[in-house]
């Protein structure tokens, strides 16, 4: 930060500043520990032997870690398949919404045309539409197109819900690419389509990555649609359903729940850590103007 102490003069002001900073740092580390604790407890409980998970005096460590809970989870019929289903649905939504949103964002930032502002407002309003409130008509829509019980019934709604935000967020990134590049490309004889995919797309790619985090998470998090649309074809269930198998309200198998939760959280965490820098830049792009 900016606290480069140039002059090591021992003035009382300095001393108080030091105390303040020490207090701030202690607070920050303390908050970090509290915030991280649930995740620590989740992973720890997943590795604890069953007896320790069901102990009335839980301790924040374990001396004999076991893979029992994970074995129960992966031994569950079709768990791997649920995992793949979740990945497949989220992956499809991410790729499709990134491509469609890229085209749309380019259109609304690079061109002036009638209804442009109206469209932008539409995209903004579309973001506000509560996914959950549309479950009922979505259910009938999926039934009518014969998509109920298939992964398509999870992909389509999430594609629609990720898209408006993606367009909105990508705007900033497309805007940031200088107009001169396009003029230059035109002079060099590149057609518009060529410019779009060979020049603009790679330049906007970091923005696409940041945007895809949000599409990925909202889809990966899906619980309501999986619960409502995948009724009889359990082979098309996704991870949340698999997790709830262990989560019987009477006698939950906490070890199993924690292991399944760990497996479900891990991919998102990895994804997040990989793209965190771009994520922050993307957020800046989405909210600044």
């Amino acid at each position, binding site marked *: *930060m900016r606290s480069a102490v140039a002059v090591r003069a021992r003035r009382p002001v300095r001393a108080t500043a030091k105390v303040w900073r020490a207090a*701030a740092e202690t607070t920050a580390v303390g908050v970090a520990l509290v915030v991280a604790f649930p995740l620590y407890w989740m992973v720890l409980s997943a590795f604890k032997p069953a007896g320790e998970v069901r102990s009335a005096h839980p301790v924040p460590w374990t001396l004999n870690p076991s893979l029992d809970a994970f074995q129960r989870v992966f031994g569950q019929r079709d768990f791997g398949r649920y995992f793949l289903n979740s990945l497949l649905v989220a992956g499809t939504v991410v790729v499709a919404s990134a491509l469609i949103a890229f085209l749309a964002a380019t*259109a609304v930032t690079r061109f002036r045309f009638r209804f442009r502002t109206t469209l932008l407002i539409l995209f903004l309003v579309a973001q506000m539409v*509560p996914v959950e409130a549309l479950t009922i008509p979505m259910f009938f829509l999926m039934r009518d197109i014969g998509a109920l019980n298939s992964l398509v019934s999870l992909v389509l709604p999430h594609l629609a819900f990720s898209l408006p935000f993606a367009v909105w967020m990508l705007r900033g990134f497309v805007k940031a690419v200088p107009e001169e590049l396009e003029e230059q490309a035109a002079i060099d004889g590149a057609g518009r389509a060529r410019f779009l995919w060979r020049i603009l797309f790679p330049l906007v790619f970091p923005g696409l990555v940041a945007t895809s985090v949000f599409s990925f998470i909202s889809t*990966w998090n899906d619980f309501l649609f999986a619960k409502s649309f995948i009724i009889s074809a359990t082979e098309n269930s996704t991870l949340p359903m698999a997790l709830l198998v262990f989560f019987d309200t009477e006698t939950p198998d906490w070890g199993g729940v*924690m292991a399944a939760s760990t497996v479900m959280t891990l991919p998102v965490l990895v994804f*997040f850590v990989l793209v965190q820098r771009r994520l922050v*830049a993307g957020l*800046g792009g989405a909210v600044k103007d």
Partner: protein
Amino acid sequence: MSAFAPARRPGPAQSRTRGVRGGRARAGPDRPVRQGSRTPWLCLAPALLVLAGLLAYPVYQLGLISLLEYTQAQVSGGRPTSFQGLGNYARLFSDGMFRQVLLATVLFAAACVVGTLATGCSLAVLLTRVRALPRLLLSLAALGAWATPAVTGSTVWLFLFDADFGPVNRVLGLGDFSWTYGRMSAFALVFLEVVWCSFPLVMVTVYAGIRAVPQEVLEAAALDGASQWRTWRSVTAPMLRPVLLVVTVQSVIWDFKIFTQIYVMTGGGGVAGQNLVLNVYAYQKAFASSQYSLGAAIGVVTLLVLLAVTVLYLRLMRRRGEEL
């Protein structure tokens, strides 16, 4: 759409940030303008198709179903459906349970928004006051909470506060107190989880906003003898306003339509439905008791509330002279 034309007032410079924008001025008359071209519409076609078919049409359907008599009998085709007008809404609003759920949703969402913003903003300020290592630790922890899916976050928090095996009751010496049994304590537990998983977005965004305030301006303020508090109030805060507006609106929307946390943590709405919020209530009405029209009417109410928030947001943006 002249209604949304920027009504720019002369005034303090708008927040201008380094980085992505590259210091380029906003779209203005200086930009090359292409008109009368089919290209933008070609580019927009896929997005508009998706939104029309999967967002606009379901919204229309939702409104339609809420005006009909639509129960299991009609769905299976046993009985013809009939037009009810606003009958379903009249039934809803005369239902004491619905009014209670509506009020609970508003209060709960408001609490979550305030909790999330307060936590996120104060930690963002804290981040500016510490050196790299504590900042990294806090950012990583927040990233973890942020990345946690709603379902797993809900189960983990339940386990932490479990009456028999949870560490929290042991540490606090609460014995076998059940958090999910009482109405308030169950809401409090969900509140904690919601704040935990949604403050990171606010923290990261606001922190980026604070960092984007130009150094020269802060130095100028210091030279003019402004106190830290004064600098914050007169320089930083006004520049953060657009950022704060966005995160507030996002939080309001997100917290008002909460479903997963309530559903998982309170076992589908709590003891005797004491922890129901609108979306869970709509779900129960539609998929548990096949009263699709009532469920749809509840959905419409949710939609209208959020639409009102959106309109308010747009008006605020317009007042600030934003250009879309």
